[in-house]
């Protein structure tokens, strides 16, 4: 054996899990320490998937039987143009770390998902979206360029102009086209860290659609929290949260952000899920009645509004040792009213849902990735404790509603979708296949390719 080539037994292995805590499985662990590192040398036939901060819910960041390339140590900033708001950094930098540096200087990420605990590489590979999709599109819309490192040693600079096909395959490409080492992002300017927030209660699904359309005109961030136990005339009742960045002059400019609120933590995994029908009914009813109470505006720090769960570390542990599943789908507008009604009714009847469901209208912006999830339509997301067969039966039912409506599921949140549903929802998968690195694979990818 030539020196420098590690045998398989020499590659350290360790337990890897995703945010849903469904499984913890040994993987071969490869670590990148610098953006200049080469693609790890693998034994023939061995595959890897890039692993950032492990915030994908299901198995898109797992590669059972293979390995992961950990990118979290690629956490260096490269350049920040404070005049133009252009930031380059390595792919393992967390969105939280970016905001901590750029917000005091009057800049903000143009798109953030519901947690800031994701890496830049992960945000690109899943083409994440946020509460301002109707204004800003997806994360990938604001990526100017990135470097993609392939297992054959090539390093490709990808942008809308250079290697545009690789750019489109890698945005939303689930880490299958190679490893992203660094990226350049276009930021947007803000006056400071605060948002002006307004909440409005709505009584049923029909009022959601009306309120949503109106809110999207006046607010940058809009999202609705739905009581997923509401049935009959309560079906689809909830609270619409709407917010805008505060304008210049509305607060002292360039103020330093106050120390963040103390971080709380779920210190251990309870043996059973603390989320059950009884706790759920109590919480949802209380939330609906309390949150929608005042219709006035409040000024709040962006963290609490955009990342409400980030203040509780390991909140995923609340679902116990069997973990949890998230279901997020999008259906086109034409079918949205009917499909959302059917989905919410099925979930309410099952009584299996978690605290709150999230409902949001996606805007017209075209997603830049071949496999990007967002499309014009309405998206619904909610968590389910992993109750085994019962939740599987419910998912089958939900899948058939989504499929009939011409919708699709979000791979970053998924651990169960059947291959046929993936392939009908993402018709460009056949083009995408040509861009997959032969050394890359994931548990999700093998699952959705079954029977293809």
């Amino acid at each position, binding site marked *: 054996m030539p020196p420098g080539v590690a045998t398989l037994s020499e590659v350290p292995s360790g337990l890897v899990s995703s945010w849903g805590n469904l499984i913890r499985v040994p993987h071969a662990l490869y670590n990148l320490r*610098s953006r200049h590192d080469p693609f790890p040398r693998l034994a023939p036939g061995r595959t890897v998937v890039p692993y950032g901060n492990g915030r994908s819910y299901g198995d898109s960041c797992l590669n059972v039987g293979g390995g992961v390339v950990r990118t979290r140590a690629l956490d*260096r*900033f*490269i350049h920040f143009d404070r005049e133009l708001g252009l930031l380059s950094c390595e792919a393992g930098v967390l969105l939280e770390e970016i905001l901590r540096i750029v917000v005091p200087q009057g800049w903000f990420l143009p798109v953030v998902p519901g947690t800031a605990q994701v890496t830049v590489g992960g945000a690109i590979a899943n083409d994440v979206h946020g509460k301002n999709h109707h204004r800003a599109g997806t994360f990938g819309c604001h990526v100017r360029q990135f470097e993609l490192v392939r297992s054959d040693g090539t390093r490709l600079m990808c942008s809308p102009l250079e290697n545009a096909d690789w750019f489109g395959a890698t945005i939303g490409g689930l880490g299958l086209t190679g490893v992203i080492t660094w990226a350049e992002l276009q930021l947007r300017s803000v006056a400071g860290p605060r948002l002006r927030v307004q909440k409005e209660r709505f009584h049923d699904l029909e009022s959601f659609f009306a309120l949503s359309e109106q809110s999207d005109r006046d607010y940058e961030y809009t999202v609705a929290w739905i009581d997923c136990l509401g049935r009959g005339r309560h079906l689809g009742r909830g609270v619409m949260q709407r917010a805008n960045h505060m304008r210049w002059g509305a607060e002292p400019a360039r103020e330093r952000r106050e120390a963040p609120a103390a971080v709380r933590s779920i210190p251990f995994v309870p043996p059973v899920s603390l989320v059950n029908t009884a706790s759920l009914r109590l919480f949802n009813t209380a939330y609906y009645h309390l949150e929608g109470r005042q219709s006035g505006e409040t000024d709040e720090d962006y963290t609490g509004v955009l990342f409400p769960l980030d203040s509780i570390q390991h909140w995923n542990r609340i679902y116990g040792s069997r973990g949890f599943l998230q279901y997020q789908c999008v259906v086109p507008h034409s079918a949205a009213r009917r499909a959302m009604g059917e989905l919410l009714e099925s979930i309410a009847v099952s009584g299996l849902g978690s605290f709150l469901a999230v409902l949001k209208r996606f805007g017209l912006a075209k997603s830049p990735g071949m496999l990007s999830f967002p499309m014009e339509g309405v998206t619904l997301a909610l968590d389910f404790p992993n109750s085994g067969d019962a939740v599987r039966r419910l998912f089958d039912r939900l899948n058939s509603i989504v499929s009939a409506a011409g919708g699709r599921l979000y791979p970053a949140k998924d651990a169960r979708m059947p291959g046929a549903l993936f392939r009908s929802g993402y018709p460009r998968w056949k083009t995408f296949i040509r861009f997959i690195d032969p050394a890359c694979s994931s548990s999700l990818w093998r699952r959705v390719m079954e029977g293809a």
Partner: protein
Amino acid sequence: MKRILIVGATSAIAEATARMLATRGHAVYLVGRNELRLAAVAADLAVRGSSRVGSEVLDVNSYAEHEPMLHRAETFLGGLDTVLIAHGTLSDQKACEESVELTLREMHTNGLSVISLLTLVAAATTSTAARRHS
């Protein structure tokens, strides 16, 4: 604002410390062996808020270079307030037992080079302090 020299700046502990210093706006001069990695750390610290970032490539086992390096650092920073020496290797005990050459090299890298640097730093900072006093 402090003026800080960091030797072995690409080591994990030095890099983590340097990030904290950069966030507070301190000026730093970074010394390390690997040019690419050193440049990556320097760029990172500049974005994080360091008021001034300089760097140079140096193998600490080149003792003759210690004094000129210190001089360049002092010139770049306009004086020196703090020095962090963080370079070193994780020696392989077994291999050292079997090789005199390796043992001596490890002692140079992890022991003697530090003594050399500290001696020069002590002299430099004492004279700075004396100048400031008078």
